[in-house]
């Protein structure tokens, strides 16, 4: 049923996945919410300029792992991370590391669309502005426009970039959030089910965007859709009950997984 998209074609050309260097390395990562342990010694490495998909049943800890990659877990009271995660060569949980810089390098798109109650323009320009990425107003306009275009939203909102972002429909809001994250041009982009609120056309646009971005960025995406994972990712990691069950090349994962649980999950039901 999959049509062979451009992305899929290119992915088929990726032979030497295992030679790609690691952008982020997670070693024995465990996460606790207060007393409750949500992740158990996860060892998962993220390859550079690669799309890594995290799959697994609801509540298995995908979001939790994702959030620990840019220390968004810091903001949750009582959340504790053990183990070691590195970005390039920096230990991101090192007290010396700067979480702001980290998050500027590792951007994030959330599960629930959360546009700021500001205009569309302000939403997108927010990141560049705080990081001082634009030199001039024209520069900023340019960034906003490109980002919105990349998120496939430009045509719909170009006439009303100065209206409130919360007045958009659910799908539009999520694309706005993607545009907002992209506008900062991070090295790694974490996406927590970015398409769950999007219709197929918008989804395809985002997937295309992901594909485009992959050339320069490292992307980690949580998704519930096996097809989406298959379409966009080169590597897939499967979580279950807080454990990393398997991590593999996406092709292998969806055709011949090592772990029987993966097999069950992928073959037993489909998205």
């Amino acid at each position, binding site marked *: 049923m999959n049509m062979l998209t451009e992305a899929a074609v290119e992915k088929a050309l990726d032979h030497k996945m295992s030679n790609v260097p690691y952008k982020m390395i997670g070693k024995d990562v465990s996460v606790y919410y207060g007393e409750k342990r949500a992740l158990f010694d996860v060892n998962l490495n993220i390859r550079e300029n690669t799309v890594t998909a995290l799959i697994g049943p609801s509540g298995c800890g995908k979001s939790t792992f994702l959030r620990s990659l840019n220390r968004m877990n810091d903001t949750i009271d009582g959340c504790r991370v053990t183990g070691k995660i590195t970005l390039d060569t920096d230990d991101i949980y090192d007290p010396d590391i700067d979480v702001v810089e980290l998050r*500027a390098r590792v951007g994030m798109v959330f599960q629930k669309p959360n546009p700021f109650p500001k205009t569309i323009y302000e939403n997108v320009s927010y990141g560049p502005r705080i990081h001082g990425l634009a030199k001039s107003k024209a520069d900023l306009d340019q960034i906003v426009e490109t980002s919105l275009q990349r998120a496939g939203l430009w045509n719909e909102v170009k006439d009303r970039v100065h209206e409130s972002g919360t007045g958009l429909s659910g799908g539009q809001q999520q694309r706005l959030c993607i545009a907002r994250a992209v506008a900062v041009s991070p090295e790694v982009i974490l996406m927590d089910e970015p398409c769950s609120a999007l219709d197929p056309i918008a989804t395809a646009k985002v997937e295309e965007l992901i594909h485009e971005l992959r050339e320069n960025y490292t992307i980690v995406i949580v998704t519930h859709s096996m097809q989406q994972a298959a379409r966009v990712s080169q590597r897939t990691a499967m979580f279950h009950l807080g454990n990393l069950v398997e991590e593999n090349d996406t092709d292998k994962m969806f055709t011949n997984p090592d772990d029987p649980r993966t097999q069950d999950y992928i073959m037993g039901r489909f998205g």
Partner: protein
Amino acid sequence: MSTSIILLCLVVIGAAAYLVARSRATALAGGRSSALHSRPAYYGAYAAIWAVLPALIVLCVWLSVSPGIIQSSVRSAFPADVKAQASVEQDLGYSMVATVARGLTMLTSDEAAAVANDPAALQAKLLEKGVPLAGQPQPYMVDAAKTLNAKSMTSRLAMTAIVFILAVSGAFYALRSIAPRFRARNRVERVMLWGLLLASSIAILTTIGIVLSMLSEAARFFAVVPAADFFFGTVWDPRFAGAGSSSFGQFGLIPLLLGTVYIGLVAMLVAVPVGLFAAIYMAEYASPKVRGVAKPLLEVLAGIPTIVYGFFALVTVGPFLRDFSAQISGLLSGSYSNFIQAQSVLTAGIVMGIMLIPYVSSLSDDIITAVPRALRDGSLGLGATRSETIKKVVLPAALPGIVGALLMTASRAIGETMIVVLAAGVAARIQINPFEPMTTVTVKIVNQLTGDLEFTSPQTLVAFALGITLFCITLCLNIYALYIVRKYREQYE
């Protein structure tokens, strides 16, 4: 039956109606509650409302109207020579009658008989019972007192009967109308809605009351002093108007208005940054423990009587600023003369600002806390620092609420008297130096109302004119603020 017993009975009837109606509804439903339109409890409430509300209204009306009716009928039976007196004297006579009547109910019939024809003995007897009379009751008063007692008794009986009949018939009416498809919930909620509406109408009524209670006196003021002199006058110098002197001075509003704005501004300059930063810190940075302690502590500041602040300004802050300024000018120019007066706009502003801190901090803290976490996450996820998140995302989202809090704070600053009196003095002057004394409209309202001034003179009446004017000015400011808030409001989900 005493009113409280009637009320108690009403409660009982209401409760009974509630229970009966509820069980009737349950029975009607035959166990399938989906057959009913509303939950049985709503049927109960419906019946209870019918049982209590009409009866209660009648009771209130009766209680407030009947004494007047009884009074006029008792007075109509006064002897002709009494009726010939001025009505105020009859009023006083009647109050004596009422006292006697109250006393008579305390006497046993034997005692009553013993003193029946002897007013002096009656007075002594009543005094013994703890009902002192101002003088000897006249014979007609005793008769009138008896009539009064009789009539009150009849009235009370009638009232009790009617109230009970109303309650019971209301309950029955409600019970009869119970049917499975009967929309009890909607009816009950309509009553609740009326209740809510009534509550919000109190604000309107208060306004009307305030305006009315000042209007006629303000009009009398403007009859004496030309409005233009008042509104555009730049000198405030009402001469003392006690006995003798009939001349009065100038009533220029402008210096007072400027003082109000100036002192309020300084107060806000202290309260808003401090309050907002405190709120932000408590909401965003502080541990729950720190917040749990700091917030109530700061709230204590709002509860300290303003006279305490006033004396604090007078005794501590004012002299401190004065001496401090003397030191500074000494260091700078060598002459140790203070450039800050002990009483000054600055002193009043600072002290008032301190009082206002919790108005800003506590309200804003609640509003900031209520901003959904998703917005914070969105910003933090983009690599914003916490302060950037707060400044650029959280505060704008919380803005309408914060503006509301600030408006209230400003309002409180305008309405404060005691601090200004003691910290900035009562001298109405036009000037721009914050180190000099000035005074506010409110101070003058209070002072003109509570002085030894002649109450019919413009010196006193000006208080009402000031009140109305202040009311109108703040109204305009509020309208403008509403407009601004509407314009910049950011609604989150």
